[in-house]
């Protein structure tokens, strides 16, 4: 089969939708100040201006090791099978997230003063 005109229309629409979603959520990037760790047991906030490491107990007996180091945070180890959160690496910008779905744990960086108003950030 050959490409038809509708294919280009679909591609264009999908590209516009995806790019506008990206801009909406990631723009503008500012350095975050606080890490929010959401676990099944509740939500904890940690200042990023410290050097610390701790563990969080997730669902299904999964334990995550989280490190905070000079303005950034990461999931250093996780007992989950897919390691998506570990591969997310260091997070430092407001809005960046690492999530472990099997454990029901997420780490999100918030804070910092956005350059644009609260609606677009």
């Amino acid at each position, binding site marked *: *089969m050959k490409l038809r005109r*509708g294919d280009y229309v679909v*591609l264009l629409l999908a590209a516009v*939708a*995806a790019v506008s979603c990206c801009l909406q959520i990631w723009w503008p990037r500012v350095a975050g100040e606080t890490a929010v760790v959401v676990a099944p047991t509740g939500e904890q906030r940690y200042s990023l201006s410290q050097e610390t490491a701790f563990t969080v107990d997730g669902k299904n007996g999964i334990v995550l090791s989280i490190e905070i180091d000079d303005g950034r945070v990461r999931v250093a180890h996780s007992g989950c099978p897919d390691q998506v959160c570990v*591969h997310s690496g260091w997070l430092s910008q407001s*809005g*960046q*997230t690492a*999530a472990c779905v099997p454990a029901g744990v997420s780490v999100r960086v918030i804070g910092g003063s956005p350059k644009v108003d609260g609606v677009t950030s």
Partner: protein
Amino acid sequence: MLAAVLSTLTVALSFLEELLPPLPIPGAKLGLANITVMYALCGVSVPCAAGMVIVKATFALLRGPIACLMSTVGSLLSLFLMALTKRFFWDKLSFVGLGVVGAVAHNMGQWVISYLLLGFAMTYYAPLLLLLAIPAGVITGSVLNVLYPYLQNNSLFRKG
């Protein structure tokens, strides 16, 4: 018979995809199994494609209940939107357009599940996966654009 062959191929393709080296972006996948699902949708019937999706989701249980739930919701939503697209726009589209619709819809379905499980956090990661769904849909769609005429000429894959 044809439904069984296609279901087997779907499961085989999703396992094959697990064997490929992982992309540098966590959670991003090519969606090879969508090739057989789209073939079933256009070359056989919607119920056949739906059955294949359910078989595939059952096998996703091997990767855990959450993977299974994401697979079920993502691929059913994807199939639903592809079936609608095919019903109304098939004279204007090829498998590339259909594949992009399917890949994006699959993504949205998975996003809804991760939102329900994790709350707002995943929202910050979803747009990247949405962006990657487009080339994934183009690749699977192009594969089927090339293969479809050959499959239709093969008695094993032709309906009836």
